[in-house]
């Protein structure tokens, strides 16, 4: 797979498992969607080798060449997904989770029935086109990280904003318990029921809304991969301010026409100023004035039990490296500490209660210097786990290594009441 240049390429293939018919291929190069296609013979061989193993009851899950990692995964014996990535710092963990998200996205928009009972391949291909935009957003450079962490991307609204009340009031008026307020694909606040949505839909729904072109309102049919994979629900979205959307998940009622401007005004006009204050939270995640150490260039905070995360590369935005690089460094670091250093996340594997209890008392930390080995250069990365929270920081090269741990501890303490 020799690629010229240093920009990594990702190819995603989707095939009907039984016939090997390709259903779609999506690619990205250097973080942007690309048209480039793999030759049919390569697709055939990649699928062939996986099928060959399966016939011998061998599960081929991944392979590596000099510059490319390949991961295979079959879903319900009906759909095979294959991903090839030559992106720097890619890993099996990242690609496996990517495939789970992609299949989740397919169920979300097409329904499990269509994917497991393929009666008409051509029709299915046509229906799957509805997923391209969402799937491309996983392959490209995204500001969100829920695809990797499997936690919901959230933001912390400014203090004193009373959205919770408006949200539950509005949801009740609309006749549903499932409502959330999103800014650029991140959850600002949500009702209890919305928070109880399972994985992957809890991550997929905000991501979907963030990936769609702007519309004043939508009535969007969705299947819930975990909660309702065969019966569609309706995702209603209402753009209160550009970038700030109110989402409701409901059954046949209410009709979209019922959620008219008068109803919106009644519930939301009083909080207009607080709503406006949420707009910069898109990339920033934390309210203005939240004290962060100036060495911090990027931050990823996970709450592994609530399955929520906070991800930002906005602090000290005027310095090197670029936001894309920062995201990339934190993503790779997350993958590394998750795959190698920290115990498995809850829900990933069965775990015993004692393990959790034990872990709660043992803070674990690790750090990494990225880039050159010369002293005083290279970005610092530090990870700290305390109870259900895991904090990853990207720090400037000037930050002294011996102070990393205490800096991370202090930052985590400051963030804990908010998250």
């Amino acid at each position, binding site marked *: 797979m020799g690629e010229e240049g240093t920009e990594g390429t990702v190819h995603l293939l989707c095939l009907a498992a039984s016939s090997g018919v390709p259903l779609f291929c999506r690619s990205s190069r250097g973080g942007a969607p690309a048209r480039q296609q793999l030759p049919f013979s390569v697709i055939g061989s990649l699928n062939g080798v996986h099928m060959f193993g399966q016939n011998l009851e061998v599960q081929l899950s991944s392979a590596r060449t000099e510059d490319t990692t390949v991961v295979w995964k079959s879903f319900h014996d009906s759909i095979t997904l294959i991903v090839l990535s030559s992106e720097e710092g890619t890993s099996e963990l990242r690609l496996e989770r990517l495939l789970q998200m992609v299949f989740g996205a397919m169920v979300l928009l097409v329904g499990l029935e269509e994917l497991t009972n393929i009666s008409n391949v051509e029709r299915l291909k046509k229906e799957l086109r509805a997923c391209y935009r969402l799937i491309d957003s996983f392959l490209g450079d995204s500001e969100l990280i829920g695809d990797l962490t499997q936690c919901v991307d959230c933001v912390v609204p400014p203090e004193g904003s009373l959205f919770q009340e408006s949200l539950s009031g509005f949801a009740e008026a609309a006749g549903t318990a499932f409502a959330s307020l999103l800014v650029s694909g991140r959850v600002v606040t949500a009702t209890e029921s919305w928070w109880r949505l399972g994985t992957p839909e809890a991550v997929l729904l905000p991501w979907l809304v963030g990936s769609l072109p702007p519309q004043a309102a939508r*009535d969007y049919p969705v299947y819930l991969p975990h909660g309702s994979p065969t019966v569609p629900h309706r995702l209603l979205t209402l753009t209160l301010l550009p970038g700030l959307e109110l989402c409701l998940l409901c059954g046949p009622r209410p009709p979209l026409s019922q959620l008219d401007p008068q109803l919106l005004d009644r519930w939301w006009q009083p909080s207009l100023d607080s709503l406006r204050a949420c707009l910069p939270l898109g990339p920033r995640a934390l309210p203005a004035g939240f004290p962060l150490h100036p060495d911090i260039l990027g931050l990823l905070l996970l709450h592994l039990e609530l399955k929520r995360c906070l991800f930002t590369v906005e602090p000290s935005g005027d310095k090197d490296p670029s936001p894309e690089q920062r995201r990339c460094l934190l993503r790779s670091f997350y993958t590394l500490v998750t795959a190698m250093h920290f115990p498995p996340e809850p829900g990933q594997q069965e775990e015993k209660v004692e393990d959790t209890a034990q872990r709660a008392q043992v803070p674990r930390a690790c750090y990494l210097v990225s880039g050159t080995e010369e002293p005083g250069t290279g970005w610092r990365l530090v990870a700290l786990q305390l109870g259900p929270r895991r904090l990853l920081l990207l720090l400037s090269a000037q930050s002294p290594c011996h102070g990393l741990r205490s800096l991370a501890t202090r930052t985590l303490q400051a963030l804990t009441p908010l998250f």
Partner: protein
Amino acid sequence: MARPPAPGSVIVPDWHESAEGKECLTCILRKNRRRVFGLLERPVLPPAVAIDTASYKIFVSGKSGVGKTALVAKLAGLEVPVAHHETTGIQTTVVFWPAKLQVSERVVMFRFEFWDCGESALKKFDHMLPACKEKTDAFLFLFSFTDRASFEDLPGQLTRIAGEAPGVVRIVVGSKFDQYMHTDVPERDLTAFRQTWELPLLRVKSVPGRRLADGRTLDGRAGLADIAHVLNALAEHLWHQDQVAAGLIPNPAENAPG
């Protein structure tokens, strides 16, 4: 539906190009781009020129691929989709348009809410069509100049969709007019259709407009100039229909049959 008003009889046609009109249009622009409004927002005018807002719901109907989504995007000043992806479910788009009335010389802020729904969603989900039709003020029936079948489907659509909706504005829209060289719908067929149905007809081209100096962002003013005739026509028919419904002007259809 009332007999359509004569073009230009309700709305001053080129008002948006006058000094007063241009000044007024700045409230729907921001840094030379079209401004996008959230549902809690509306254009802000200086208090001295505070004007009334007239809100209308418009359902955009037509076969898959005729250009419904592209038309709405063009009217909203957004990027028009290049490749065709069928629209998933219903999507609505709000467009504000200030226009001047001929009779009173009053400026009115029109608020159009376009309802666009993918054809397969309409077929698959029973609740979609009623939601689109509910309390709609107008139907736009799209056909494409490059798709004969979409033109021939019009009578069927008119009865299927708007059959039992009296008092609602119905407008036929021929899309992809920029492809007129390759049209499958000759003028004489259009003339025959108009004689039978007596419906207003608009011709539109939903192609990307001029861009700003950065080469990427759409030029808001240029985009408005491209579509002003469409928005004025919508305003004209909807305002006229309201006047007739309120009994403010007699329904010409009743007074002068034929």
